[in-house]
Every structure is written in C-alpha cells, then in structure tokens.
C-alpha cells in the first residue's frame, strides 16, 4: 500500500488543474496519479464536495474518450467514502434527466456509458444497471412514438455493452438474454427506408454501407459469441481490483425514460462509413474487422476526441495520434477513415468542413513519414469509387481535395488518373477532375493550373475566367443597342448619375412591344441587356469594382428589375457576360440578393431555366442555390430574433412599470410608453409572416421545378425505351435529396403542403421515393 502522506486540502482552482493534469503527467504512471488524486480529493470532500461533484459530472459528460480513467477515480473515491459515491450517482442521474429533457441525446449516451462503467468499478450494483437497461429497451414497446426515439434507447443500451457487457452477463445472464432478444426483434421490425438517403456510396462493394444500429448489433452479437471478452478498452480499474471489490455498491434508482413530447428531437439515424479493411495496410498491424467491437470502440473514441478538441487543431491532431494502442492497430488508417466519415456524413458533417482540411494538414505535419501516404491512398480509393458516390459527398471531396492541394503546391500524380480522359465528360471521374481543377484555379490563377496538369488534361482544364462583352467589337455594331452601349460606356466613364443613365436608356427600343410604354419602363429585355452588359464589362477588373458598380447604379437596377421577368433577365445577362467565371457569377448573385435587386425565387427560377440547362450539373450552380436558400433562412431567423427581442423589451418595460408603479395611476402615460414598442412588434410580426411565406414559396418553387425536370426525363426515357439512370439523372435526383437533407429542419414545417400539393401518389415512384426517404428520417 501507499505510505500515508499528510493530507493537505486544495484551493478550488487546483482541483480542476489536478483533474486535467491527471491525464498528462508522464513521469508517473496513471495508476499512481489516480491513487494520489483520489487521496487528495478525499481530503477535499468536506470543503469542496459540491464542486468536486460538479466537475466530475461535467467530465463524464464532456470527456467520454477518457471515461475509464474517471470511472476508476470515482471508484476509488467511493471505496474511501461510500456517501460520496451515492451522491455522485444521484448527481449523474439528475444530469441524465436534464440532458434528456433538453434533447442533448449525444451527451446522455456518454453519461449512461459512464454509469455502466461504474459497475466495473464496484460503484453501481450490476442488477440495478440491468434494470435501467430493461426500462430503456421497453421503450420499443411504446405505441405511436417516432422510431428514432426507440432507436436511441436501443443504441444507448447496445453501445454500453463493450464496456460492461461481461460484468452484466456474469451477474444476470437470463435478463440480459431477454434484453438482447427483445432488441433483436425490434431491430428486425424497424423500417429502414431512410438508409439510401444517408449512404455515401450506392454500391455495396468493397464495403457495405450499414445502418448504424445494424452494424452495432452485429458487433455486439460477435462480442457475445466471444463470451464478452473485450481487450481494447483501457481499464485502469483492473489494477485496483483488490481495493474496489471491498467497496460497497449503490443501486441505481429506478429510471423511467421521460415520455415523448412534441418538443422531443432525437438524433438522426446514421450510416457507418467504412473505406478501409485489413487488406489496406498489409505491412502494419491488422485492422479490426467491421463487426468487431474493437472497431466500434476505436471509432467512438476517435470521434469523441474530435468532438472535444475541434476548436484546437494542433491539440486535436496530437490527441488523435496519441490514442493508446498505437502499435496494435493501424492508427493512421483509423484516423483518416474517421475524419472522412465525418466529412462525408449525411445530412451534414458534425463540424465545419474546412476544419477537416486543416486537421488533416496538422496530422501530416506531425507524421510526415506516414500519414501523407495513407491520405494519398485514401484519395486514390475515393477517386476509384466516384461512380457510386453520392453527389453531395462528391462536392465535399472536391472542396477538400482542391483546398488540400493548394497547401502542397498542387503536387499530384495526375497521370495516374488519365483513365478519366477517355470517358464522357459528364461521367463522375472526369467531372470530378474538372471541378477540382476549377476550384484549384479559384485558389490560384489560370496559368498555374495549365502548368500543373499534363497537356492531355487540357480538355478538363477550366476556362480562362474572362468577361464576354457582346458590344465590345466594332464587328458587333449591327447588334441592336450597340450605339446605346457606346453612349453608356462614355457616360459611366464620365461619372454619370443614375438619372443620366435613365435618360440614355430611354432611347432603347423594346423588342417586345410595338410602341413604347409612356412610362418607358415595362419589361424591356434589350434595355437590361445593354445596361448590364456595359456596366459589368466596365467593372470587370475585380469583385470590388463590380460591387461598387452595383451600388452606384442601384436605382437603375431596381427599376429594371421591377418585374419578375426583369429579375430573371438580369440574371441571364450576368450569366452571359461571366459564364467563364462562375465565381464572379456567384458573388454578383449574392450581392444582388442582398441589395434586393433580385429575390431568392428569381434565382431559383433562373437556375432551373433552359438557358442554364447546359451548366445544370456543375458544382457552382448548386453552391449558388444553397447559398441563396441559406440567405433566405438567415433572413427569417434574423427578423424572428428582432421580434423576440422587441417582445422581451416590452415585457421588461411592463415589469419595470409594475414594480415601481404604486403611485402613478396614469394609464395613458404607460400606453404612450408601450405604443411605439407595440407598433414595432406588430410591424415585425407582419415582417416575420411575410418572410416565412417567402421562404416557403422558395422551397415550393424549387421542388416544383425539380419534379417537372425529373418527370420530363422519366417520361422521355420510358417512351424512348432507354435506361433512366443516366449520369444526369443520378446527379439531378441526388441534388433533390440534397435540398431535403441540407435544409431538413425548415422543410419539416412544410410536410403537409408537400404531401398534399407536390409529392402526391400520382408522382413517378422514382421521385416519390426521395420524399418518402426524407419522411422516414424523423419518423
């Protein structure tokens, strides 16, 4: 045993530092750190008990990758102080209830796992843990609840078993068998319509894209077959078995899962991403199989590390690389696989995309001799499987790869990919290379891209991003509007005002009408053409120049764009001028929306217009559409926030008045105070309703256009007897899926309208399937 040192008590801040340092001290073993810390904390309990409880509960919730270290610590404390153990368990249960109340399901999983590992540390009696799991699994018997609710309770049960399965089975095998059999029958009867929507690849080879519960079930079944022998998890409590087994255990209080409410939002189902297996690193340690529980634990822990340290890229990289078991598992492969799993996750990655790019760069810096090779191998594999990769994931692959290359002088063995040059350019591989080169150009410049690829790749190289001005050449002087264009050019160069521009434009004949409107400003496409072409050409030098031009002549733009046709035509002309420079088109559209020259619906209609059909599958088009939707969503949120803030101000005003209003009975003065605020609230209320209506309309327009486009294609294929599944079709249907997935929270509000108006039973089953998969996501 350890010699008794004089126990001094700590300063409050020291407790936190000590807990953090517990994991970092290298000069002494983890066991001696734990023992020492347990001693110090025990001495601190009389003075700092609630603080210690709070810190340990927080650690349990937020540092799941270090779970067994802290459960051991709690075990040691419980052995020394039985009451503390009991209070900790109670605090954890309270925290669990709180988490479930506020939909913090991911953190709740960590708490339950922590509790289950406390069984291993003799803090909690096994039978009471089994009882809790029985209550969890019985949720599957509830009626009229969303499947995702039952899913979560089953998940939390199964995912704790790698830690505590052995102990629970040893103590209560009959009950456990019953639980497992109940789980199995639930898993058999649950629906899995949502799965295709969440898969990164549509093909099952080389690795099937399994639904997460199915995969976990296979892993637990294998664990059971192996008699619950689990060797990967680090279990510091084993070293303290003689102390811990003397400790008195606590019973978990009976825990009833809180009932389902309208506000409950359960985690979305997932598909397990796998890209590597033991054949991919023949030289190194063997990668645990896809149905091994080791694979599950490793992936869970690596995901937890990223979740803990995503804001600190260097720390995150270091923590990932120092994951224990480095020489027994091909850690680099696991890390790369877990990172891509997050990057490609549908509907969205857990963190901002650019984080993964920078994290991978940090990892390459820390392991320059090994990680870059694994990453290159991964890139090659992803390229090989592009044909079946979901379009949204291809987008992310394009963004990641181009940004990554820009940090490494664009060095890549492009010749290895020459196979794509012989394919139809709409096929996924050449399309991918083309989009990557375009993005690389955006991060550098045109000539650089020409220089970095072999000459044979010129067919995939991006266009030189120059502006196309139709009135530029003398040879165009026969074009209608040519002379006005010249006039405009001179006027603008001479710093003309909006009024002067208006008067010049008055002379432009309207090809749509026999006689000009007296007002002169009904939809006149030629007027728009001449003005927009000329102005954009003059301002072509840089984004800033173009933005200044839009700002200076805002009045003219607003007038020309008054009608819906006007808005659409402006967008058309922008495209004609800048079709070589998609980036410029995107920033101009963004600016025009923000300055209300065009609205979001006009942009949506333009994207689906026949003029853009040629570019319909290009990445930039969808960047523009999703950016437009996001702007709309942010706008609604912003006004809503303003409304809530104003309502809060009014409430505060009332409260203030009520509290010091004993003498002042003057109702009129209080009304006067309220007046402007109440008026403001009314106005904001209207603004919110109108914005929400615009938002709904935008989605309806988009869905309508998709349905029209897809139906056209399906009918054409059917009558022509050709295969529906062309590259265009795959791209289009996945773009429709992408709309649902990327904006699922907002679209959930429109389910009734969508079902009754657009996605009705008469629709072709190919299109309807997408809607049904989406409905299944939160069903």
């Amino acid at each position: 045993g350890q010699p008794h040192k004089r126990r001094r008590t700590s300063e409050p801040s020291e407790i936190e530092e000590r807990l953090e340092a517990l994991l970092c001290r290298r000069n002494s073993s983890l066991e001696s750190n734990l023992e020492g810390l347990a001693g110090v904390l025990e001495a601190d309990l009389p003075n700092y008990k609630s603080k210690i409880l709070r810190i340990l509960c927080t650690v349990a919730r937020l540092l799941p990758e270090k779970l067994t270290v802290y459960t051991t610590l709690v075990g040691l404390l419980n052995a020394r102080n039985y009451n503390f153990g009991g209070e900790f368990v109670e605090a954890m249960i309270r925290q669990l209830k709180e988490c479930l109340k506020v939909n913090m399901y991911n953190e709740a999983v960590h708490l339950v796992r922590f509790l289950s590992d406390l069984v291993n540390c003799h803090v909690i009696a096994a039978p009471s843990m089994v009882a809790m799991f029985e209550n969890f699994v019985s949720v599957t018997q509830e009626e009229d609840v969303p499947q995702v609710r039952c899913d979560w309770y089953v998940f939390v049960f199964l995912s704790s078993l790698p830690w505590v399965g052995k102990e629970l089975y040893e103590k209560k095998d009959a009950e456990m068998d019953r639980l497992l059999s109940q789980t199995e029958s639930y898993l058999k009867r649950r629906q899995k319509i949502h799965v295709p929507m969440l898969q990164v690849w549509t093909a099952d080879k080389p690795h099937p894209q399994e639904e997460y519960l199915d995969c976990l079930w296979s892993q637990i079944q294998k664990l059971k077959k192996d008699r619950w022998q689990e060797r990967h998890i680090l279990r510091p409590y084993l070293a303290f078995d003689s102390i811990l087994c003397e400790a008195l255990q606590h019973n978990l209080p009976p825990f009833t899962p809180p009932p389902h409410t309208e506000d409950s939002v359960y985690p979305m189902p997932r598909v397990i991403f796998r890209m590597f297996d033991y054949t991919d690193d023949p030289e190194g340690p063997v990668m645990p199989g896809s149905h091994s529980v080791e694979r599950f634990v490793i992936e869970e822990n690596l995901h937890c590390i990223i979740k803990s340290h995503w804001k600190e890229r260097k720390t995150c990289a270091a923590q990932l690389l120092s994951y224990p078991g480095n020489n027994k598992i091909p850690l680099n492969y696991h890390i790369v696989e877990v990172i891509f799993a997050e990057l490609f996750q549908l509907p969205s990655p857990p963190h901002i995309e650019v984080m993964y790019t920078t994290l991978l760069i940090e990892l390459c810096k820390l392991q320059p001799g090994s990680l870059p090779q694994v990453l290159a191998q991964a890139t090659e594999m992803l390229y090989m499987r592009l044909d079946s990769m979901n379009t949204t994931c291809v987008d992310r692959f394009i963004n990641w790869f181009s940004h990554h290359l820009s940090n490494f002088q664009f060095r890549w063995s492009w010749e290895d990919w020459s196979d794509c040059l012989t394919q139809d350019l709409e096929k996924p591989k050449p399309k991918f290379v083309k989009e990557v080169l375009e993005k690389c150009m955006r991060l550098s410049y045109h000539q650089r891209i020409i220089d970095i690829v072999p000459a044979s790749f010129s067919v995939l190289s991006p266009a030189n991003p120059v502006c196309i001005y139709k009135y530029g050449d003398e040879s165009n002087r026969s074009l209608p509007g040519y002379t006005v264009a010249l006039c405009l050019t001179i006027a603008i160069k001479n710093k003309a005002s909006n009024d002067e521009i208006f008067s010049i434009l008055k002379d432009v004949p309207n090809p749509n009408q026999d006689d000009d409107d007296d007002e002169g400003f009904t939809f006149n496409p030629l007027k728009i053409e001449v003005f927009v072409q000329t102005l954009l050409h003059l301002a072509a030098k840089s984004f800033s120049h173009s933005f200044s031009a839009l700002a200076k002549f805002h009045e003219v733009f607003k007038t020309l764009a008054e009608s819906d046709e006007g808005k659409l035509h402006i967008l058309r002309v922008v495209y004609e001028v800048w079709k070589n420079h998609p980036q410029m088109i995107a920033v101009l559209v963004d600016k025009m929306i923000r300055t209300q020259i065009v609205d979001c619906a006009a942009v949506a209609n333009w994207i689906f217009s026949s003029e853009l059909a040629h570019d319909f599958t290009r990445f930039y088009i969808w960047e523009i559409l999703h950016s437009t939707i996001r702007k709309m969503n942010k706008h609604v949120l912003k006004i809503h926030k303003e409304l809530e803030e104003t309502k809060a101000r009014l409430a505060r005003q009332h409260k203030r008045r009520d509290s010091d209003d004993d003498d002042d009975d003057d109702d009129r003065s209080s009304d006067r105070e309220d007046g402007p605020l109440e008026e403001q609230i009314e106005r904001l209320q209207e603004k919110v309703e109108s914005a929400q209506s615009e938002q709904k309309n935008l989605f309806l327009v988009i869905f309508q256009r998709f349905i029209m486009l897809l139906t056209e294609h399906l009918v054409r294929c059917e009558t022509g007897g050709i295969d529906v599944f062309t590259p265009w079709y795959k791209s289009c249907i996945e773009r429709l899926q992408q709309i649902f997935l990327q904006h699922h929270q907002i679209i959930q509000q429109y389910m009734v309208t969508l079902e009754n108006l657009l996605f009705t039973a008469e629709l072709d089953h190919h299109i309807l399937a997408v809607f049904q998969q989406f409905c299944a996501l939160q069903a």
Partner: protein
Amino acid sequence: RSDSYADLSQYRDQHFRGTRYDQERLLRKSCTLYVGNLSFYTTEEQIHELFGKSGDIKKVIMGLDKVKKTACGFCFVEYYARGDAENAMRYINGTRLDDRIIRTDWDAGFKEGRQYGRGRSGGQVRDEYRQDYDAGRGGYGKTVQ
C-alpha cells in the same frame, strides 16, 4: 473550454484612435480580420475563395502601397457574423494562400486610410527593413534596395 486560435493576439494597432480598453472591446466583438504575409500578386478573388470557406464574406479590402496604389501584401476580410471570423482564425490562419503561410488577426474595424501601408516607402513597415529576398513581396526590403 480552450479556444486559443480565436483569442486576441498581443498585437495592438498603435495608430488606433481611442483607449486600449476601447480597442480591446472592439476586437472582441469584431467581424473583421487583418490578413498578412500575402503575395503582392494575390487577388481579391483568391482571398474571397479561401476565406469564404469559413462563412459568408461581407467585404474584402485590399491593402495598398500608399504611393503606387498597388497591392502591398495585406488585406482586411469582414464577415457578416463573428462566428465565421472565428472559424477563419481557427482554420485558415497559418495555412497557405499562393504557397505562402498567411497570418490572420482580429482587427478593430476598417476605417478609411487603414488600407494603406505605413512604411516610409509606401508599403508595409515589415518590407522596409526586411533583409531577405522575397519574390512575392517586391524582392529585397526597401532599405536593402
């Protein structure tokens, strides 16, 4: 929870009009970043593409040589939301643009005149006294030339 990449650096603009306290208050709520160590040839478009990865950009203002009125290797990037600027500090700061490691830092906010270099010759101060040869920043430092 540690978030060191998004913290304020030690740098304070000596030309700032106001107290240290004012400056720090502005830095803590700013949506504007200073970006340094750019090549003279890096364009607004490239900056927009790279910094657009952390969120929607409100404005890019290129830093100019006070005399020549040409790019002199720095710029300001303003976001609509501070969270997007924070992500730029976490994930774009210290990575490469035009093969150069660029550096970002919080800025108290653009004011007219701040787009010009403050070096004697018109460019940035660091290019006045630089001893090394940097092809992307006009070659040798001004005093060496």
